């Protein structure tokens, strides 16, 4: 009753407060809208699928872009991370790109296989802006407009080194691979890891029949509860099933984290994470090493080309700089050896890297696909396209080649 009596005055006071609050808000944003334009600025935008600190794929892009931003005067990075259906359910790539362009971006790099359609649509809508889709193939398929290019690292080499390290250190030759979703790229990388493992296993004198290479796909690049398989569980299942090395092909570090825990519990198991230079830090004691992308050379060239107007739409692949695969400004693909790799195996791994540098090509026939059909005849060397468009897993690998 009492409340009712005073309510008229109180509500009016409250209305006043609300109006005051709102006007404050509006004046605050009005003041913000006039930012001075700096001269000679070059803004480039990144669309990232994961968070910038994922310890994997997205962080590799972000860190490289930050590095390049600090090296090229006047360049400025803008980005939106976590562009995926779990983190930003109602946000489309096209919308994010619009926002980055509104921030002044003249170059947009989209960095997930998942962004293929969205990047193409954005590129068509913004013909004055340069687009590069990392990991895409629109240039190869002829779907790319003139302002859209593709780039990707030859991670095949990184994965071969990873496979070799796994085969060198595995006690029983039972190696597992945790993969994201099934497509050309992921098959290509799983196959490369297998080829590296097979080569080093045989070289080590292991029984060829004893080498097991089991692939499990979780369904996306990282865990989405209720949608993908849980990578933590997948990795532990590998160990339970007798694997002592797990190679990761996903964007996040579950494999190395779980291997680290198992090591701490006294199990002699190891993991090889993926994508990001410092990924071993999440489980040093179990880490055999990490193949990683170093986007610094690619971003540097890209930004310089766009600024100089010499950029044109093409399909670019970059690889390791064999003089030093870990050279920050030169090598696009690197491999950092982990603390768990024994000194003896580290020497053998260096020898393998030297062989690759010397021209060893594991994509040389005879290579059969998983279903037994011949992919490369004896002595036949795979073309870039044959490697890129890998139709199946290879003979000798266990796991699903295409979707169910």
């Amino acid at each position, binding site marked *: 009753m009492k409340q009712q009596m005073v309510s008229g005055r109180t*509500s009016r006071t*409250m*209305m006043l407060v609300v109006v005051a609050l709102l006007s404050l*808000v509006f004046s605050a*944003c009005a003041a913000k809208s006039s930012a001075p334009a700096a001269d000679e600025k070059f803004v480039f935008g990144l669309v990232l699928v994961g968070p910038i600190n994922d310890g994997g794929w997205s962080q590799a892009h972000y860190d490289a872009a930050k590095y390049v931003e600090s090296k090229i005067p006047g360049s400025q990075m803008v980005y939106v991370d976590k562009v995926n259906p779990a983190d*930003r359910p*109602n946000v489309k790539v096209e919308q994010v790109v619009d926002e980055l362009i509104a921030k002044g971006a003249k170059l947009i790099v989209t960095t997930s296989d998942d962004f293929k359609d969205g990047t193409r649509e954005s590129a068509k809508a913004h013909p004055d802006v340069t687009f590069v889709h990392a990991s895409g193939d629109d240039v190869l398929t002829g779907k790319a407009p003139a302002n859209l290019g593709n780039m990707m690292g030859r991670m095949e080499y990184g994965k071969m080194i990873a496979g070799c390290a796994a085969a060198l250190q595995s006690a029983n030759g039972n190696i597992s691979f945790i993969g994201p*979703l099934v497509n050309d790229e992921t098959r290509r990388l799983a196959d490369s890891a297998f080829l590296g493992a097979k080569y080093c296993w045989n070289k080590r004198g292991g029984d060829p029949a004893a080498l097991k290479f089991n692939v499990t796909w979780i*369904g996306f690049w990282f865990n989405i509860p209720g949608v993908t398989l849980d990578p933590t569980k997948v990795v532990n299942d590998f160990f339970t099933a007798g694997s002592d090395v797990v190679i990761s092909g996903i964007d996040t570090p579950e494999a190395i984290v779980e291997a680290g825990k198992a090591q701490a519990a006294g199990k002699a198991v190891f993991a090889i994470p993926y994508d990001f230079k410092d990924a071993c830090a999440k489980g040093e004691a179990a880490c055999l090493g990490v193949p990683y992308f170093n986007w610094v050379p690619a971003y540097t060239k890209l930004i310089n080309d766009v600024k100089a107007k010499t950029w044109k739409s093409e399909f670019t692949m970059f690889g390791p700089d064999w003089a030093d695969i870990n050279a920050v400004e030169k090598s696009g693909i690197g491999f950092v050896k982990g603390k768990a790799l024994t000194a003896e195996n580290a020497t053998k791994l260096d020898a393998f890297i030297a062989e690759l540098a010397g021209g060893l090509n594991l994509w040389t026939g005879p290579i059969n696909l998983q279903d037994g059909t011949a992919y490369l005849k004896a002595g036949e060397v795979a073309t870039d396209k044959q490697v890129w468009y890998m139709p199946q897993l290879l003979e000798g690998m266990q796991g699903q080649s295409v979707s169910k």
Partner: protein
Amino acid sequence: MKTQFVALRTPIIAMIVALTITAVLLLLAGADVFAAFGVLLTGALTTPSRIADMLMLLAPLLLCAVGLTMSFAAGQYNLGIEGQMTVGGVAAMWFLRGYQDGAPVLVYWIGAVLCGMLMGALWALLVALLKRYMRVSEIFAGLGFNFVALGLALYLVFGPWKRPGVASMSGTEPLADALWLPTVTGTRLTLVTPLLAIVMLAIVWRLIRHTHWGLQVRACGLSALASVRMGVPATRRTLEAMALCGACAGMAGALQVIGVYHALVPNVASGIGLMGLLVALLVRADIRWVAAVALFFAVITSGSIQLPLTLSIDSSISGVLQGLIVLAVIVARARRGEEVA
């Protein structure tokens, strides 16, 4: 005048409480509070393209909120709305898969929307029937069916409807260009989507407030037992209200397929149904406020995309604000001894 202020007092106090808590959170995160609210409230309205994106979020949100207002009026807490939206998208995709070059697209658009509505209605009816005849709470049945619907969409995207050689949750092969709903030049706005949402709003408005049928539905919502005694066919009205809600959600799902994603993605519902639930909770089955509240939610959700870009603040703060508003309103209602929803 005075009574209106009394009615408005609860939401205003709740709003201030929610804004204050959000402001404190922003302060704790070291953010510029006024700038953040400024971006949230106006970020979606600064360019035609942003307004268009906001409207494309508003349309399915409004459809869900309108449907839920219907089901709430009948006393049914339809938490299965996301699932109904998902199966709507699935049914639309099923129909569109029959398209061949040169076929009349209008037929396919209408067919897809009708299929979506039908499937959404059936999905909602399942929940309502379980409640009526098996005494399963519609809240839990609805949530359960959400997972089943997501499972169905995932199975189709990874299985029979997969892209050739690919198994990824990123969705089916995009629809043929001709099947994409036409957009207003330079934006992603498909005019027909918000128009359909407004039409559904008008229909449900009229049904609830101006028809005998609507009166009976509301009577069921107030007390099923009493309404039966008064001669209202309560079972029938409840089922009809739920089916209509499902149809709205299914339509939203179908429109997301032909107007937004241009493919079936597993997450076609993408939390819009849940946001619709927040709207429905706030308006308490009062259809007059649905559009305004949905608009407010669409504006801050859409505007929040700019938070990480302009202020390096995580965009999830918009969800926090929405949740807090609803929570504060419900607490305020509970304190006054009113019915909560």
